[in-house]
């Protein structure tokens, strides 16, 4: 997402809360456009985080752990651009995490299918249910039927351990 605007360089060099000497209608329109972009990005970020929770965490705090200007203020064009860019970066990172997560779950589901089809090929392989996108701390595991006897006889099965009671 890009916004190309002509602006005077000194605007971004002003300190927090400082006003530029000239605030034209064009610059105000640019700030409004940036605010709209910030709103859209924030909504998108929230949607990704909520849909992906708990596997996708809320983004780490920006602005060095504090607010951009130390408190609520009217952001300059430069500060709004920085906010927009940081949000865009967070959205991109969240999207990437969501994609990676989806790929992991797809791979895990495929592995589980193969484990169930041919358990003897996946001896003692463990697959946490979290990797399948499910909640809890259960684990799918290929184990020998009847313990040592099954291991010697080649009787393998896929079992789901229930995990901890709080999981």
């Amino acid at each position: 997402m890009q916004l190309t605007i002509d602006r005077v360089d000194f605007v971004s060099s002003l300190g927090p809360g400082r006003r530029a000497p000239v605030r034209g209608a064009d610059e105000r329109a640019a700030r409004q456009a940036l605010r709209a972009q910030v709103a859209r990005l924030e909504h998108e970020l929230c949607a990704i985080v909520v849909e992906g929770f708990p596997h996708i965490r809320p983004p780490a705090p920006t602005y060095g752990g504090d607010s951009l200007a130390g408190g609520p203020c009217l952001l300059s064009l430069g500060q709004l651009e920085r906010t927009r860019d940081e949000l865009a970066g967070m959205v991109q990172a969240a999207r990437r995490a969501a994609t990676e997560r989806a790929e992991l779950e797809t791979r895990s589901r495929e592995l589980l299918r193969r484990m169930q089809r041919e358990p003897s090929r996946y001896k003692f392989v463990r697959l946490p249910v979290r990797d399948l996108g499910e909640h809890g701390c259960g684990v799918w595991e290929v184990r020998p039927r009847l313990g040592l006897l099954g291991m010697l006889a080649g009787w393998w099965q896929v079992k789901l351990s229930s995990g901890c009671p709080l999981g």
Partner: protein
Amino acid sequence: MEAAGVSGEAGVGETGSAGERAGGVSGAGGLSGAAEGVGEQALRVGWRAPEVEQELPQLRLILARARVTRAGAVNGRSPPGVRQRVHECANRYRGARAIGVRREPVPSAYRVFYRQIGLDPEVVRTPIEAVVLERMMHGGFRSEGLLADALLIALIDTGVPVWALDAAALDGELGVRLSRAGEPLGRAPDAPMLPAGRLVVADRLGPGAGLGPGDGPDGAEGSVVLGSLFGELAPDCRPGAHTQELELFAVQVAGVPTLYVEEALWSSRAILEQGYSPSEKHW
């Protein structure tokens, strides 16, 4: 009232529980945008400094007065009905909803506004997210006195935060402006100083005063900062044991329907004046 499922700016001509209590609307000194959708007669719209109005046209401060009718202090122990209501509010926020609250329309509108004014909502939590987080950590809401309970119930019901100031400590109508460098937060001699350019809630000043960090000292003569927007209130203006009248205010931003703001103010005022929540009657 649930926040979910409502999007965009409702407002003008809206009907509903608050709309049915409609009466005239009073702006502060005939300010622009003062009247839209604020149906409750006793609700007023605060002034905005021109610069704030230009940059954040959908930011509004909605005000309401509440008289303290109880014998004890407004911060004193809540009546049993209010305490019960506070405890029941906790049932509405369990794990799944606590996570999803940031996506609900009203809380989401405040998150967006935080970003737009330079606050990171992951650091400075929006009021509704802050109380939901507290509820998850403590396993419920705790009653902390009538005033705090009334504001909490209004926040949980609507997603709109309401603040209260001691009306006796105010001089004129409340509004939003930018702070000047070294301006104190409140009237106390040892009040903390604010940097220039903060969005603050202040009293007295009317529109057109040309306030801003670069406008010189005369522009805001007599106007006192009573709190940072969404932040700390001046200690000397907070309601105390002898408070007789409260000035309630809510901050409306883009995406928050006026009806919700009205409901938040009406709900908190009803609890403060009558000792019960209006929606309690339907339970």
